[in-house]
């Protein structure tokens, strides 16, 4: 199993441990990732607000690069960051459906000597793990089952929305299934896809912090030991502002928030450092 890999900006900075742990886990499982050469920003959400055409052009350059580097036929491009994943997938889908948009974007690519034929399939690591690799195989690879660990899965918004390429848009279960495969208890909760506010923690912090407060409070009410996420921004918001939130609302909301490959890595018996766990603000005691 070999895939092209689009890290995106966050996985090189605040979400560094997402990249570290995913690379380590995938390597351990025999899934090969080859980083896309010379990638650029995915366009993300803020970009669309200024100039959509430009945002989609920027994104399509990555798709074109994937075709340049991925050989012939269908190309699987893995994008772990939810925003990148959604941005790439949305651009790809819109280009397929809207001729006018397609023409203008292709023209822009052409001006820098690139082309895009529509051969790229945008994939999320969750999709790869469950549908390509398989939970049965994952189960066999588990060395240290995560007994008595209550896990809540926080999917965030942009992994199953607006285009649901895998799992369910309002009640996704892939991360829960992975947690169960690792021997942990998947705690069901109603806020799996309830938005963390994205960059609102910086822009309108009152609002951003409140959204995260509600999420953390509910996780604690459901007696979760740990929250797992699949998005660098969700993870950042949920983990890095816990002190601020606790102070603001006068109640402790401290709970470890890790990326799902970090959880997998622990069950596989990988080294803490390899998984970037030393980078976490709140150390998961259990692990």
């Amino acid at each position, binding site marked *: 199993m070999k895939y092209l890999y689009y890290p995106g900006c966050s996985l090189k900075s605040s979400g560094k441990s997402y990249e570290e742990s995913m690379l380590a886990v995938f390597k351990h499982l025999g899934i090969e990732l080859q980083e896309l050469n*010379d990638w650029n920003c995915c366009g993300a959400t803020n970009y669309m607000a200024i*100039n959509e055409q430009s945002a989609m052009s920027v994104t399509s350059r990555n798709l074109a690069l994937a075709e340049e580097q991925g050989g012939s036929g269908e190309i699987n491009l893995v994008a772990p960051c939810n925003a990148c994943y959604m941005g790439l997938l949305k651009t790809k889908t819109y280009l397929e459906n809207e001729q006018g948009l397609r023409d203008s974007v292709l023209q822009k690519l052409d001006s*820098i000597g690139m082309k895009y034929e529509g051969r790229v399939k945008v994939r999320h690591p969750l999709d790869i793990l469950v549908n390509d690799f398989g939970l049965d195989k994952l189960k066999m690879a588990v060395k240290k089952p995560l007994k008595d660990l209550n896990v809540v899965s926080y999917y965030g918004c942009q992994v199953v929305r607006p285009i649901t390429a895998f799992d369910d848009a309002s009640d996704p279960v892939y991360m829960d299934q992975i947690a169960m495969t690792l021997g942990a208890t998947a705690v069901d909760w109603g806020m799996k896809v309830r938005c963390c506010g994205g960059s609102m923690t910086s822009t309108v912090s009152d609002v951003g912090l409140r959204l995260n407060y509600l999420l953390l409070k509910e996780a604690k009410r459901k007696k979760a030991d740990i929250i797992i996420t699949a998005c660098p921004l969700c993870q950042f918001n949920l983990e890095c502002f816990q002190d*601020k939130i606790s102070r603001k609302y006068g109640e402790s909301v401290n709970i470890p928030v890790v990326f799902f490959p970090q959880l997998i890595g622990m069950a596989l018996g990988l080294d803490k450092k390899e998984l970037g766990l030393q980078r976490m603000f709140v150390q998961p005691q259990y692990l």
Partner: protein
Amino acid sequence: MSSTISNMPVLNIKREAELDKNFAKTIAKLAHGEQIYGCIQCGNCSSTCPLSPYMDYTPRKIIAMVKAGFREEVLTNKTIWLCASCYSCTVECPKGIKITDVMYALKREAIQNKIYPKRFTIPAMSKAFYDTVKSTGRSNEVALLMRYYMRTNIFSALSYVGVGLKLLKTGRLAIIEKQMKRKQDFKKMLKDSEN
């Protein structure tokens, strides 16, 4: 009491002449779809929206106002800027309206006409992001936040110093970003699309 009554502003009446009859058409085009015409005002978008409690108008009202041509009210209010693009409204809309795309379209329209709320922080963040990517091809959180706080309130940055230091300590802040190789190509493409 009587004096306040005589000074009451006119709030709840709109004359047809004050409406922009082409507004719906413009937005439908910008927002990838005619679906907005099919809105049945069920309010599912407002209900599912995590940000609607903080909005001036609920998303449902925005759609109604777009359809009716309340251009000014729609473009100057905070609702469209509070949209965090979580797409929850879009996937749940029973009429298939791409509400998030409508919000994007309204943001662009507001920026283009320079009528967004001036002191509001979110447009500033969007612009900062845009500029960062434009100059480097990738987003860099340090550069992005620098740009952002320069535009808004430099002092508010102080309240994030704690978080910043922790990030630095755990190696999660990339001060020197690995640069793109074909940056010139990238800039050229962007320049084209801005024309």
